[in-house]
């Protein structure tokens, strides 16, 4: 289980992103580029740890690799979407596996294929946040 960095969106007003990847390099680079873009970033190294952390902090966005230990990224996505506490969390599957269709079936909001291209990652995260905000507003009006 990894440690969270700047996880409190209430205190900072910044969106919280939970990054799930077993590779320390990608965790570090994702955290760097997302923080640089103004987000609060925490991370986990495996699926079970990520689920536990997500239930605790309820991130705005969860970015997960499919190939992570204990609970794979697609199963993690299903669990996140099935849990009333976390179902509003947007899930971005970011994987070395070309599995856009499987990610969609698992309920993911977006899919990106590795390697890490920071501009694409940050743009996708911003789009997901906008869509998530609009969705929540619509739900509140209804």
């Amino acid at each position, binding site marked *: 289980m990894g440690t969270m960095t700047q996880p409190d969106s209430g205190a900072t007003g910044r969106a919280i992103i939970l990054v799930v990847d077993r*590779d320390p*390099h*990608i965790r*570090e*680079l994702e955290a*760097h*580029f997302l923080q640089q873009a103004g987000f609060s970033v925490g991370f986990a190294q495996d699926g079970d740890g990520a689920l536990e952390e997500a239930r605790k902090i309820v991130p705005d966005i969860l970015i997960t690799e499919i190939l992570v230990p204990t609970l794979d990224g697609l199963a993690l996505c299903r669990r996140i979407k099935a849990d009333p506490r976390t179902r509003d969390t947007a899930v971005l599957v970011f994987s070395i*596996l*070309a*599995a*856009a*269709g*499987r990610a969609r079936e698992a309920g993911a909001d977006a899919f990106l*294929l*590795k*390697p*890490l*291209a*920071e*501009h694409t990652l940050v743009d996708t995260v911003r789009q997901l946040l906008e869509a998530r905000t609009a969705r929540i507003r619509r739900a509140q009006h209804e």
Partner: protein
Amino acid sequence: MSDADSPIKRLATGNRGLDEILGGGIPENSINIIMGEPGSGKTALAEELIFANADDERRPVLYLTTLSEPLDKVIKYLQQFRFFDPEKLGRTVLYEGLGADLAANGVGALLPRIKDAIKTLSPKIIVIDSFKAIHDLARSTEEMRLMLHEVGGLLAVYNTTVLLVGEYRHEDIAVLPEFAVADGIIELARNALGTRDERYLRVFKLRGSAYRQGFHAFDITVSGLQVYPRLVSPVEAASYERDVSRASSGVPGLDPMLGGGFWTGSAALVAGPTGSGKTTMGIQFIVEGLRRGERCLLVNFQENPTQLAHQIEQVGGKLDDDARGRLELLYYSAVELSIDRIVVSIFQALRRSPIRRVVIDAIGDLATAAIDATRLHDYLYAMVQHFAVMGVSSLFTLETDPPIMARDREHGRLSHMTDSIVFLNLREQDGIVGRTLRIAKARGVAHDLQERALQIDAQGLRIVEARR
């Protein structure tokens, strides 16, 4: 796109010949080694590639020098190339020296420097030159291997294409850990051929991609590397539609022996000893094409265009402007040129204009330009196949002395490639030496098998009578 589809994007190298060999370029987000001895053109190739791709200030190209050459020297020599663009330097092409950091902190300095570069510069391409020199700083093989594991892991997850340049030898491939990490390996080499050196480029490995195997000749010019991809047979060879018309030989009396002439788009081999009339027959073949309004190409290695034009006019009479405009002469000194360059020039001529006839005089000179007999054989075979697909009728001359192909394995191999074989010979009878002609092979034609007397005069060769 299905989930299984993950097309590999390619990074064009900026070098047309090399891109042809690589199937479009090196795969993006790959780690590649450019290896070769000092002076083999490694740095020039890497620099040509980075300047061709340095087009985005948000994603510059990063060139890291290590311990082999001082940064100033690298930049000094870079300026001699035409691809060098001073506007790009410092904006989209960034040079940095790692030497001091490596010398002070050892191989462990590399990972944080690359990581820092990724975080601060977002480099599209990273070149490390020389990567091999870093080995000299490692205290142990384990230290180098661990560093490579970390660096390889970092570079694999980030969207950048990496070139590791180094003075590696062949034996390094099986031993040094960077070769296991590498997705692509390109070797630049020099081979001695007679009194000159031939530069060759070879792709050893290109993970997940098809590429053209074998040795490809290249030169280093002010424009960068001039690469000549090895000629291979056309993929359409098995399925093209054959022309059923005839291409007259231009030799009086020979066409009837061939049932009307050579097949259009076929290849003929004219073999014989010195003085038997091979070059003259080639010229007659060309002159006949010109008479028929065809564009013709004569490739020669012995006589310059002025001498050749004189010979052609002797055989065919004075050419008018139209005929002269349809005749292309290529002259090469086979001593100074490689077969790759010659073949590329021939095909450039064929692309420039709709040439219908080609004469190559002589195969022996091409052999001098080829690094080995197998290469010559492969090139001739591919050339004949290309000519057939393009509908170009070709005639190759070959010096044979003694003129019996079966005695010579090489000549035997050559004979299988062409559709027709015509033997010219010198015969002595009653103290008088005369010329003869015999058709040894004419694919798909009920040809005359008789050896016939041949006469040569100012207008060229002509069949005079059946040999008794």
